[in-house]
């Protein structure tokens, strides 16, 4: 009786295995939705960010304005019928929309009435592979009405859309859609909301804020510490939030970046890759060192902020990239998180 019951199960499981090996990502995703399991568990290993070939073409001056700024992250579903040739038209449509919204009194700007100018431009070289769509930038500038000689355009708000190594998403959408799942915004919340509304209406897409949980923050800490740096600009810092009543406590832990790198090197085994065990070991070393001195179990608290010389990230979905060399690497990981959130 028992052998009869177990045999069909064995055949079924081996058939499923073969199916999974040959299946395309779309088939796998459909299969997992049908069985209601979650596909793509965290990959056990990821590549350490390196300087990619495409990035060498990148002019450091052109992307310098992307560094040292705090960006708020959103994930974005694919845009329907978006065309890179119509950027000027989109710019004028968006500026008309913003002017209309401001007149409605929904977004009240304190100060004198001034003209808004919107620009759309592509960011060349901000992609992982040739398949990735071009990244593009939207800026809201103010045109000063003062009769002075200096007609400077002050940047009020910046937002940019990109897709770095987004193969898993690109394979599943049809030709009409443009996949730029990662959206980064800097500037007033009201402007982000207005631009978001316009995009959602025009391209039938959906923005959602991208939060980064403690698990992903510790991966970021390990990957960024693993990056080879000639010169360290900032200490490696962590911030934990302790859940306790009435107010939560924050614990901040700063390490000299070279010590952090030395710790990482002692943990790291496979060259060029980061594994889950190495990340766990790296963090456990920090936790046990802290426990030895302060008798506090950091592993029972929640990691909310990680700051290294490469970049710094906050759990609310805020990121600041400090190093031009690893810009693509940081964005690749964020794109992965954004795609995972869309799914």
């Amino acid at each position, binding site marked *: 009786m028992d052998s009869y019951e177990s045999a069909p*199960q064995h055949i*079924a*499981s081996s058939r*499923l*295995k073969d199916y*999974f090996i040959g299946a395309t990502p779309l088939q796998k995703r459909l299969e997992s939705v049908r*069985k209601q*399991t*979650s596909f793509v*568990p*965290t990959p056990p290993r990821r590549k350490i960010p390196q300087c990619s070939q495409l990035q060498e073409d990148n002019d450091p001056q052109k992307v310098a304005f992307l560094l040292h700024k705090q960006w708020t992250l959103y994930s974005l579903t694919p845009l329907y019928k978006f065309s890179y040739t119509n950027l000027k038209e989109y710019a004028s449509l968006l500026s008309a929309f913003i002017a209309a919204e401001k007149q409605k009194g929904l977004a009240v700007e304190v100060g004198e009435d001034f003209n808004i100018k919107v620009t759309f431009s592509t960011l060349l070289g901000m992609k992982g592979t040739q398949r990735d769509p071009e990244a593009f930038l939207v800026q809201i500038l103010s045109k000063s009405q003062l009769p002075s000689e200096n007609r400077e355009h002050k940047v009020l708000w910046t937002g940019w859309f990109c897709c770095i190594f987004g193969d898993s998403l690109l394979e599943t959408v049809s030709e009409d859609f443009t996949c730029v799942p990662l959206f980064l915004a800097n500037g007033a919340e009201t402007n982000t909301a207005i631009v978001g509304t316009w995009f959602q209406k025009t391209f039938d897409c959906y923005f959602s804020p991208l*939060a*980064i*949980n*403690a*698990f992903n923050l*510790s991966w970021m800490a390990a990957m960024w510490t693993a990056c080879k740096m000639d010169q360290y600009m900032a200490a490696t810092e962590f911030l934990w939030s302790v859940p306790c009543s009435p107010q939560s406590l924050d614990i901040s832990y700063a390490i000299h970046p070279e010590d952090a790198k030395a710790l990482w090197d002692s943990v790291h085994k496979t060259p060029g890759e980061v594994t889950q065990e190495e990340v766990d070991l790296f*963090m456990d070393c920090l*936790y046990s060192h802290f426990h030895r001195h302060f008798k506090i*179990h950091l*592993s*029972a*608290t*929640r*990691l909310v902020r990680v700051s290294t010389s490469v970049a710094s990230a906050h*759990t609310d979905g805020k990121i600041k990239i400090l190093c031009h060399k690893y810009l693509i690497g940081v964005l690749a990981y964020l794109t992965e998180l954004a795609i995972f959130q869309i799914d």
Partner: protein
Amino acid sequence: MSVLRPLDKQPGLNTATILLVGTEDALLQQLADAMLKEDCASELKIHLARSLPLPSDVNRPRIDLIMFVVNLHSKYSLQNVEESLRHVDATFFLGKVGFLAMGAGQESHCSIHRNTVTKLANTYRSPVFFCDLEREGFRATVAQRLVRMLQICAGHVPGVSALNLLSLLRNSENPAPEDL
């Protein structure tokens, strides 16, 4: 001597005992209260422990079911459970051990990936239940489920044994998790 064995004591008359192991003291206490509110023909005894091994100088009844509670927001709770698992005899894992993973709903607060707990449960060939112990309604559902499971493990349900239940729970899962 500090290893828990399933059959080293005589069973109490019409008594079923569950041991809940986990670092979340307040939530375990609330879960225990919810379980005691359930209608049950057997007399329920609920033991709470932060970790194993249990102190050996206390006279306690035979334990019928152990549930290890992991909070996905806290790596410390997972490490605690992994440490405690060492103090449980292998024969306990024939249907008398289970894992409760809480906090999966708040993805932004998670320090541990769900699959880590699933893999742990698969290694020990035991079922894992994802639950929310903070909200009363969900807690009551989990309590109900645990009480039924406890009755089976204590042998109070005629015709079903702990091992039967374990193989029933295993069959309903898809085979893929074995490969994870």
